[in-house]
Structure formats: structure tokens, C-alpha cells
């Protein structure tokens, strides 16, 4: 630019060509790094420079336009700067319009939030361009609301689109919202439905945040849609996008790489809550200095040693408990029974075994009669206690009920949770009977309702891999760990095989392969855990084979949560079944699995799936190496 003194007469189109050629060759950063800040300065107040700049970009040949425009969008310090630099390029040039409205927003998703804000802000700043803003919003909403997009596109892309939608919304003015209110409403309704259907909590939250924002924009007065979800950094960031960013400060605009500061400036100030609860200060009675003759001294208190806390006694016999839970109208007694049940079961195993199936039935159908704290956990612990006391008949009952009519999804998932918890307890002799904190702190497997994250699996797998490395004993004696027979051994099959049997037989109210893919996902994860816990049991090979077949039939399932579960099943399979047996009995299946895993690593849209598949491939490699290392 220093080549351009005062009266310039050189052909701008030549410069445009140079610019375009440089950008397309990949040198955007360098040239624009110099060009853009200088142009920004020059165009700030000088109209002529603005027009020169516009001419510059307009003359760039179409085939290089994309690179140039993209470069500008990325380097510009803010929406208004972009507006000064590009002018109405998007309106005049078809290619630029395509890049800005379609390519950057819908076909790519790697750009930062700041880039999105620049772009959409730029569109909103001129009346000619605002029409584009509206079309852009409509297209974004269409994509956001399409169920196939929600199911198949990666979560990162969905986040990107959600951000774009929110920024668009922040720029819309009242009359514009009025004109497209109906369409906004319809797309929101459709979109929110697809999002809530998804099994991944992140997507559900995205849907909820966007729907809330849309609703708040179109219903400025009156009730607004409000979801309940846990706030985290992502949702907070999304919500902050709804407020339009302030134009950047007028001052030396450095080629800033920290544009995130602008996003922070837009965060709404937290309103100071001046509400103080109206509790008056208490006046401490100075009893000591009260020298008045206390006529109360004449009154002699009676013996009050019998005055203790009123405790409703729970029944002492298991059969009485069943009676109370099924019939009793006495609510206090019911409450006391629910609280005392687990310890009663554990202390009276023989009595429990007599009525185990009946008790399991009662517990499965038990509904909260009064408001007890931790009712769900109390019931679950009682169920686990019954199951571990009398595993075979109760597991038979529970697995059969899993596939029966007329249970709610919640109940079916409860059955799965109980089976896993009991399996864990049975397979670890130390935990027998000591269930103090087992509700909250599972050592390895967390059964929080939302914990379908495979991160736990990675940790477990890592631990296992570590444990296979050789360690040099330093000579100190190891403390003898408490040991006992593995009680899961005799019952592992009873837990596992009934669950895997009927998954492809739909019932009128329950279709695992159809709508109820959330339960399918949970079932798959449960099978993986059971497989993992079955290490060192006799049935493990048979379980492994059955599991492998099961995974094979479902491997192309649409729901990424299910696929994650399938991959974790493979992990536990590889870890639990003894290596020799794996490679002798299941060679062909393993080879097929290996090629499938390779496919997943390359092509699966979900990041977690790809990671799990890679882990599995590594495990397979380790396995082979280990066997090759052993002299046969």
C-alpha cells in the first residue's frame, strides 16, 4: 500500500488479481495480516479509501473470491470494520454471497465464534444486506430443525449452527421478528422435538437453549419457554451470544487475535439483588444480669427423662415389611419401612430368600407415597440387596420383566441399573454387606442417570493396560487383600443371557430397535459392564461370543449413544475374555470386527465413537503382540 501515494491512477484490478492469487495460494495470513489493519485505519474516516477498498475486493476474479472473502472475514476486527472493508460485496457478487451465506455457515463449521459474529454482524449493518440476514436465519433454522441433521451431523457442527442462530437472533429488530414470527415458531417447535429426542445430553441441551432463546425473542410479553437443565460453560457462552456485541472501541485496532474479549464485553451485567430477607436481628436476652426474683423458681419441673424423640418403629420381619409396603394406610410406618428395608434384608438373608421374588416385585412397583428424601436411592439399594441375597430367582424375574408389557421406560432402566450394581457387588468380595457409601461413590462404575460418557471406560481400560505392564517388586510384602470366592461366577450367565435374548422382538409398548433407542443404548452399556465384571468367570467365553454377535447385528445403528455402548462392549470383551480363548475361538469374528473398527475410526461422525474404536484397535494390537511374545 505504500506504493500508493496521493493521486493514484494505477489499475486497482491489477492489485485485486495479485491479492486473489496470493490468497488462493494459501498466503492469506501474511498478506492480509499487513493489508487489513492498514486498510482498517485508512477507511475509518476516508470515504475515498473505502471505495478503493471496495473496488479492490470487487475486482478479485471469482475463482479466488472465496479465499479473499474468507480471509477478510477472519482478519477483520469487528462487524463494522468488515462492513467498511467489503461494502456491499455480498449483494453485488454472487460468489461472495454464496461464500458468506452458505459456505461458511452451513458447509463448514471450524470457524470461531468471533468470525460468526463478524459475519452476521456485517450482514445486519446495512439495509441492503439485512434481507440476506433473514434468509440466512431461515436456512439455519431449517438445518437446525431437520431431524436427519440432528441425528447424523457431528455435535461440533450442531454447536456451530446453534451459535449462528443465536447471533442472528440478537441482530434482528422488532419489525423483522414480527414478519417472520410464525415461521420462527414452527421451526422452533420442530427443531426442539428432534433435539429432545436425541440420546446425547449435549445435543438435548443445545436444543433447549436455542428454543428458549427463540421463544424469548418472539414472545416479548407473556410466558416464555423455559427448560430445566444444568448450566455449564457451553450454555452460558451460548446465552451470552444473544446480546448484540458492542462495536469495538475506536482506537488503534491491533490485529488482534484475542477477539474473545469482545464477546465478554457483551455479557449482561448481573443485576444486583437487593432483596434481603426480612429477618430482624435477635435481641439476646441477658438472662445472667436479670436480677429480678424469678417467680418461675417456685415452679418445680417434673421428671422429663421419658421425653425422647418420637420414633416410628419399622417392622422387624421381612414379611411384615412386604405387608406394610403393599397395603398399609399408615404413612409413617410406610416411610420407616422404606428407610429400614435395606439393612433388614442384609441382616436376614435366609428370611429374604424365602420371599425374594415377591419382595423384588413389590419394590419394582413401589411408588413414592410420601415425600421421603432419597426415595429413589433407598428403593434401588433395597432392590440391590434382594438381588445379591438371592441372585438366581430374582435375576430371572427382573430380566423377564425387562421385556414385559406395561412397564415405563424408567422402570426398565431401573432394572438395568439394579442388575449392574448387584453384579458389581457380587464380583467384589470386599463390598459384600458394606454398602455405606456405595450409593454415591462407586469405585469404578458410576451410575448417574446421565453418565453415558465413555470417559469412565477409558480410565478403566487405561488402568487395565497399566496393570499388564511388568512391575519390579521392591521386596516389601504385599498386604493380603481380603479375598473370597467370586460370587458373580455362578450367576453371571443368569444376569447376562436373558437380557440379550429378546432384544429384537418388539412388544406393543416397547420396541428396542425402534423408538426406544435410549433404552437400547442403556441396555448395550449394561451388557458391556456385565461383560467386564464377568472376568474370571466360567461363562465369560460364551458371554463373549454372544456379545460379539449382538454387537455385530447392531453395529450400524443410527444413534451415537448406542454405538458408543457397542464399542465399550468390545472393550470389555477384549479385556475380560482370556486372550488365548479370544484368538482361538473367535478369530474370524475378531478380524471382521477389526475391519469394522477401522471404518469407524475413519468415518463415524461422533468423536467419542472414533476414540473408542481407536482404543479397541490398540487393545487388539496389544493382544496380538502379547501372544506373539509368549513362546507357544
Amino acid at each position, binding site marked *: 500500500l505504500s506504493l500508493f501515494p496521493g493521486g493514484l491512477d494505477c489499475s486497482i484490478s491489477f492489485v485485486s488479481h495479485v491479492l486473489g492469487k496470493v490468497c488462493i495460494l494459501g498466503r492469506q495470513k501474511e498478506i492480509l495480516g499487513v493489508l487489513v489493519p492498514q486498510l482498517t485505519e485508512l477507511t475509518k474516516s476516508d470515504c475515498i479509501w473505502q471505495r478503493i477498498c471496495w473496488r479492490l475486493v470487487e475486482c478479485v476474479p471469482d475463482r479466488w473470491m472465496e479465499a479473499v472473502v474468507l480471509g477478510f472475514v477472519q482478519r477483520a476486527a469487528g462487524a463494522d470494520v468488515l462492513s467498511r472493508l467489503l461494502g456491499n460485496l455480498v449483494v453485488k457478487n454472487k460468489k461472495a454471497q454464496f461464500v458468506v451465506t452458505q459456505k461458511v455457515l452451513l458447509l463448514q463449521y471450524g470457524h470461531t465464534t468471533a468470525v460468526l459474529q463478524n459475519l452476521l454482524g456485517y450482514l445486519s449493518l446495512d439495509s441492503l444486506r439485512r434481507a440476506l440476514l433473514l434468509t440466512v436465519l431461515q436456512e439455519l433454522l431449517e438445518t437446525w430443525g431437520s431431524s436427519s441433521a440432528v441425528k447424523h451431523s457431528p455435535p461440533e457442527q450442531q454447536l456451530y449452527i446453534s451459535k449462528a442462530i443465536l447471533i442472528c437472533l440478537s441482530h434482528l429488530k422488532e419489525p423483522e421478528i414480527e414478519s417472520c414470527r410464525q415461521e420462527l415458531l414452527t421451526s422452533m417447535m420442530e427443531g426442539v422435538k428432534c433435539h429432545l429426542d436425541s440420546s446425547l445430553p449435549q445435543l438435548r441441551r443445545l436444543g433447549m437453549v436455542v428454543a428458549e432463546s427463540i421463544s424469548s425473542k418472539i414472545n416479548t410479553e407473556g410466558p416464555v419457554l423455559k427448560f430445566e437443565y444444568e448450566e455449564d460453560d457451553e450454555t452460558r457462552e451460548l446465552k451470552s451470544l444473544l446480546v448484540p456485541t458492542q462495536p469495538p472501541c475506536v482506537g488503534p485496532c491491533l490485529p488482534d487475535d484475542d477477539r474473545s474479549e469482545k464477546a465478554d464485553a457483551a455479557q449482561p451485567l448481573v443485576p444486583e439483588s437487593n432483596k434481603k430477607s426480612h429477618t430482624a436481628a435477635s*435481641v439476646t436476652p441477658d438472662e445472667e444480669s436479670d436480677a429480678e426474683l424469678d417467680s418461675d423458681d417456685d415452679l418445680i419441673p*417434673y421428671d422429663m427423662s421419658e421425653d425422647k424423640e418420637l420414633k416410628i418403629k419399622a417392622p422387624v420381619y421381612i414379611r411384615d415389611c412386604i405387608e406394610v409396603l403393599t397395603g398399609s394406610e399408615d404413612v409413617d410406618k410406610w416411610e420407616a419401612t422404606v428407610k429400614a428395608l435395606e439393612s433388614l434384608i442384609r441382616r436376614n438373608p435366609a428370611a429374604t430368600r424365602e420371599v425374594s421374588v415377591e419382595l423384588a416385585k413389590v419394590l419394582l412397583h413401589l411408588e413414592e407415597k410420601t415425600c421421603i428424601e432419597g426415595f429413589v436411592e433407598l428403593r434401588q439399594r433395597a432392590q440391590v440387596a434382594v438381588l445379591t441375597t438371592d441372585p438366581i430367582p430374582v435375576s430371572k424375574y427382573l430380566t423377564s420383566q425387562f421385556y414385559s408389557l406395561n412397564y415405563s421406560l424408567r422402570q426398565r432402566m431401573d432394572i438395568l441399573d439394579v442388575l449392574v450394581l448387584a453384579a458389581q457387588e457380587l464380583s467384589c468380595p470386599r463390598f459384600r454387606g458394606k454398602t455405606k457409601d456405595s450409593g454415591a461413590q462407586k469405585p469404578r462404575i458410576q451410575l448417574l442417570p446421565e453418565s453415558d460418557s465413555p470417559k469412565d471406560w477409558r480410565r478403566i481400560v487405561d488402568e487395565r493396560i497399566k496393570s499388564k505392564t511388568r512391575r519390579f517388586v521392591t521386596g516389601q510384602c504385599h498386604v493380603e487383600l481380603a479375598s473370597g470366592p467370586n460370587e458373580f461366577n455362578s450367576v453371571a450367565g443368569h444376569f447376562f443371557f436373558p437380557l440379550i435374548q429378546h432384544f429384537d422382538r418388539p412388544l406393543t409398548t416397547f420396541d428396542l430397535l425402534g423408538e426406544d433407542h435410549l433404552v437400547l443404548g442403556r441396555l448395550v452399556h449394561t451388557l458391556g459392564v456385565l461383560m467386564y465384571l464377568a472376568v474370571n468367570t466360567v461363562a465369560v467365553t460364551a458371554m463373549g461370543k454372544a456379545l460379539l454377535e449382538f454387537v455385530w447385528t447392531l453395529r450400524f445403528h443410527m444413534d451415537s449413544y448406542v454405538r458408543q455402548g457397542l464399542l465399550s462392549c468390545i472393550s470389555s470383551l477384549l479385556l475380560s475374555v482370556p486372550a488365548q480363548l479370544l484368538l482361538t475361538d473367535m478369530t474370524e469374528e475378531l478380524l471382521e470386527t477389526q475391519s469394522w473398527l477401522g471404518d469407524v475410526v475413519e468415518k463415524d461422525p461422533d468423536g467419542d465413537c472414533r476414540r473408542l474404536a481407536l482404543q479397541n484397535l490398540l487393545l487388539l494390537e496389544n493382544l496380538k503382540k502379547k501372544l506373539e511374545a509368549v513362546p507357544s
Partner: protein
Amino acid sequence: MALPPPDPQFVLRGTSAAVHTLHFSCAGQEPDIPVLFSGSENGFIHVWNLKTHRADTALDGHGQKSVYCVKTMGGKDKLLSQGRDQRICLWDLAEGRTSVTDSVFTEHVGFCRCSLLKVAQGGWLMATAAKGLEEVQVLELPSKTSVCTLKPEVGAKLGMPMCLKLWQLSCGSQPLLLAGYEDGSVVLWNVTMGKVLSQLVCHQEPVMSLDFDSEKAKGISGSSEKVLRIWSLNEQQNLQVYKTHQLVNAGISDITIRPDKKILATAGWDHRIRIFGWKKVKPLAVLDYHTATVHCVSFSDHRNPRERLLAAGSKDHRISVWSIYTET
């Protein structure tokens, strides 16, 4: 060595329904018989003869709906009763009559007991919860004219009034009202002007019952929690928390201070009646007789201090009558 708590002097049976309210009328001269009025869940008001320990009459005026408040208006011939049929009935019981002379339709669907205050010869003020959710209506009896309606300001979110107490510092001075609300606050109202004088958050749960000693300007309130709160009224008519007493079991249905202001009694959800000294709220006795929640306690108005009684009505259909701390 403390003595074990006394047994009830006698027990009145025969209501065949939970007893919700009690009121003594024993101040008459001989040959007037001391009586105890009780209101039950089946809508009957029993008039108990305290000499024979039998119910002389049963009054049916609330159409089988629970009677939750009975009071006398100067002597046992004029009775006021409040029931869940949303009515307050005024009875004339002189000379063996059992008729309802008048009634007030309050349209109140809750359980807030009304409060009576004698302001002049034959003139009474009655405060009762009204139709509106947070409102308290003050009526003049027997004319039934409305003196004022006490409405908390918009957004106060006090909830329903739960218990009321009308009082005045001395005869002829301004009547004031203490009201305990669903949100746990106690509010002091100036009845004549209809304004709030002071408000104090006493509990986290609804205030179940309160009583006030105008001489010492101290009051006490209980709720479904495990505490009793004692608060005081200073010269600027402001309520302040004075003391808190922790209970062994949660839930208080009724509190009443004996007319001589020496002791107070509480009716508990844990089936027990507790007696405290009023001066320092020192626990004095725990009377454990009933087998279900005690709904109400009441002290008698005997002229002879030695004859004073305490009565408690419970969900187990029985009324226990006690003679305790009568020597002072």
C-alpha cells in the same frame, strides 16, 4: 429427684371424633356449673359438665363439617363457633336453649381460628380470615358490621393467615391484631387504621399457633418445625425475636398462655402436652397421655386458683383434663 409427671385428673370420652377445639367457662358463681365446650371433626359441639364429667348437650350447627373454634362471649350462655362449612355461628344457650341466633358467612376455606376481643359492654371485635387469600376481616359483633379488612400489600406473599390474636393494651386503647401467616411471618396490624405496624419472620414453615402476653409485650409462636419462637414488642411497636426454644419433636398445633401469665402449654404432633414457665420458657413438664396428635389446649378461667384446670383435645377422640401447678 424430680417427680414423675401427674396423670390427668379425668378424661372425657364420647365425642367419637377428633377434638379440634376447647373452651372453658367456669367463672360463674354457684350454683352455675363449670362447663367445657369442645368442637369435633364430625360437626358437633359438646357441652361437658365438669362436675359429672358427662356431656350435657351436643350442638349440631355446622352440618357435619368439622368445628375448629369455639369461644364464649361473656358467660356460657353465649357461644360462638366456627366450622369448615365456612360459617361462624352465634348460639343462645340460656335456659337450656340450643339455637343458633345468628351466623356469619366468612367464605374462608382454611383452618384459621377467629379471635374475639371485648371492647365494650356487649360490644365485641372479631377477627377472622376472609374470602381473599391473604385477607383478615375484622367485624363488630353483634352488629356484624365490618370494621376493616386487613390486606397485606401486593407482593408480600404471606400466604393464608393461619392464626389470629386481637388484643389491646388496656380497655379503651387501640385494638391491635397479631396474625401468623403461611410463610412463617407474624405481622402486627393496627386495626383502626388497617395498616401493618411490624412484621417478623419467625419460622420457615407456616405459623400454626401463637399467643401473646400484652402485659409483658411478649409473644410465642409455634409451627411444624422443631422450634418455638418467643418474640417481644418494643416501644416503637416493632417485633423482635427474643428467644428460640428447641423442641424434641417437630410440630406444634396449639399454644396457650395461662391467664395468670405464669405458665404456658403447647399441644404437640408427637402426642404430648408440654408445660413451660412463661417467664423464661423453662420446660416444666411433659404430659404424655394421648395416642395421637394433640390438636388443642386450653386453660380454665376458674376464679379459685386451686381449681384451675388444663384441657387437651386430641385426634384420638379424647379430652384429657389436668390439674397442674395450681398452688401458685
